[in-house]
């Protein structure tokens, strides 16, 4: 569908992240690339669950005339996104700590200059 514009936005975000990972040399930038891809995928999951004119699936003080279930967005993608956000935070924390230790040992963040592993 040509009107799937939010999906295309997701792909553009993922493409930006992939480009950074593939062509940049600084480790911090690579970590940023991973975060951008994570955000893209999270956005993708959220957009998957959107229903036109839908409200949040919470019943507290819901407007009385909301059709159930057709007037609500899907809850499962939101739960999946929550999970994947936390996983993203965990991965990012570990990557950043690796970068701190690596910088202490090598004194550089350039991936081309840190080749102590033999080829």
């Amino acid at each position, binding site marked *: 569908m040509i009107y799937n514009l939010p999906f295309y936005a997701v792909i553009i975000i993922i493409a930006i992240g992939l480009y950074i990972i593939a062509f940049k040399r600084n480790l911090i930038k690579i970590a940023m690339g991973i975060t951008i891809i994570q955000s893209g995928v999270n956005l993708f999951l959220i957009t998957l669950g959107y229903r036109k004119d839908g409200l949040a699936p919470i019943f507290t003080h819901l*407007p009385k005339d909301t059709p159930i279930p057709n007037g609500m967005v899907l809850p499962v993608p939101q739960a999946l996104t929550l999970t994947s956000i936390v996983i993203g935070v965990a991965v990012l924390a570990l990557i950043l700590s690796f970068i701190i230790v690596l910088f202490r040992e090598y004194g550089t963040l350039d991936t081309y200059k840190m080749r102590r592993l033999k080829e």
Partner: protein
Amino acid sequence: MTDEGLSLIVQNIVSLLFPLALIFSFYIILFGHVTPGGGFQGGAVGASAVVMLIVAFGAKKIHGNMSHENMSIFESTGALIFILTGLIGLIVASTFLSNFLVDTPLFGEIPAWGSNPGILNSGGILPVLNIAVGMKVIAGLSAVVLLMALAMEGKKK
């Protein structure tokens, strides 16, 4: 950032804001099954309160008051509550993580179907798990930031 942290103005405002942020985080955690929110979201707010302290006062001073070892114990406790709730569900009801608290006096009320004003004493094991996860996230994220900040400060000397 020096070892003493930021200026006096920032420190004072942070000490004013810290309890407010913490209370807000508790609100989000405790009302997670009624209004938008939950353990993770509230935990992230609470952790950001602690991070605010770390930024304002410096990691050394905060580490003296609450070390990351204590946070790790706190975090393990949260995780243990989660998994033990699941195991109790296995023993008391049918399966692991089954919602055995529905229809009991504790968190057991069932709200009317459809739109309603919401009951705090509802949700079965959901509030328990929310609290467990909230504990875990506050302690865990603060511990990570504290460790990283300590490592960065140690490097400067």
